[in-house]
């Protein structure tokens, strides 16, 4: 197992929080109160069924952006159920954000894993995606049948326009966070041109930007 001296830990904590600070839920970061995340044993007192139900609730009612999702998480898991401390929650959020996939789902996976290992991770994932997935399947069945209905086409025409607006808004907000100088700006522009004009493969572009990022930003203090 890995072990760290306390000074190493504080350096890490500093970097975690700095990194954290670029994110909308930065309000969660509290410098002085974080204590090291401890290796936790299997919490047998928390049943998988309860975990599933709490995450089902989160996945069903926590509409809205990442921020409202996470405050919902914290209210349920830290304040009401007391399954996690505030610090453990923050660290789970950080892990959820820095791993590939949907960050909120990943936060849930991390919390599930901390509480009941792999079974817990499965329980929280299934709970969290259950309602949305069932609804999406129902909508898909409906969609296939009525795709050419003129009323549905009219609705979808409005929806399609709003979705493009939403996408632009997401791009705008993300750019405000991570395009901070000419170098990061260049990454964005080159990626745009490579995909929009040269139709290069985006998976390859992401891998390449990670590699180039490593070369270019390796010496920066984040």
């Amino acid at each position, binding site marked *: 197992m890995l072990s760290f001296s306390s000074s190493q830990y504080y350096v*890490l904590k500093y*970097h975690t929080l700095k990194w954290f600070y670029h994110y909308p839920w930065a309000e969660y970061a509290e410098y002085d109160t974080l204590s090291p995340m401890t290796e936790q044993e299997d919490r047998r007192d928390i049943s998988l069924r309860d975990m599933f139900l709490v995450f089902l609730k989160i996945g069903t009612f*926590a509409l809205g*952006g990442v921020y409202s999702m996470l405050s919902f998480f914290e209210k349920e898991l830290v304040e009401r159920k007391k399954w996690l401390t505030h610090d453990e929650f923050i660290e789970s959020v950080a*892990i959820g954000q*820095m*791993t*590939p*996939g*949907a960050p909120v*789902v990943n936060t849930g*996976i*991390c919390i599930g*894993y*901390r509480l009941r290992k792999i079974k817990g*991770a499965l329980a929280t994932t299934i709970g969290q*995606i259950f*309602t*949305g*997935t069932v*609804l*999406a*399947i129902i*909508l*898909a069945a409906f*969609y296939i049948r009525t795709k050419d209905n003129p009323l549905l086409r*009219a609705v*979808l*025409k*409005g*929806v*399609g*326009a*709003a*979705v*493009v*607006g*939403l*996408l632009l*808004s*997401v791009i705008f*907000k*993300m750019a405000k966070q*991570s395009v901070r100088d000419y170098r990061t700006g260049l990454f*964005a522009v*080159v*990626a*745009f*041109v490579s*995909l929009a004009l040269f*139709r290069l493969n*985006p*998976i390859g*572009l*992401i891998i390449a930007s*990670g590699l180039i*990022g*490593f070369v*270019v930003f*390796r010496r920066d203090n984040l």
Partner: protein
Amino acid sequence: MILLKFCGVLFMVNALTIGGGFAMLPLLHKEFVERYHWLTNQEFIDAFAVGQITPGPLTVMNAFIGFKLHGLSGAILAVVSSYLPGIIIVTLTAKYYYAYRESTIVTSAFKGIKPAVIGLLAAVAVSLGTTSLVDAGTLVIALASFTIITFTKIDPTFIILGAGLIGAVLF
């Protein structure tokens, strides 16, 4: 065979994209719409809208696409291949959190990936925009949606539902 390819694409996309559900859009668009032609641009927009108005993460749209391609089994396989990478990677990360966090490789690579994802998303927005912004009405809706979502705290779900309602009346 299609199903296997479909799962492979989803697994790969979910294992590679950092930066949230939106970061996956360029990759999914490329694979589903441009390479394999499983969806038209319009269907991709509809799937994205479904992912937005349903509760839970945007990745729910994968279940919608799976169902469209191959019925219930397609939807279930889509869910499994979408979340399996996360489960594997997150549990490993939770185990070795500190070593991973400290690594310069990860932080510097992220610093390049994040702005690149923005560029990729912008390219997708252009492609989707040419499909769905066809007249003055749709243009106004898109502008209004951008403005409201960027500058207020109103949940995007309501904007999209509202736009659907306006569409039903207007078009």
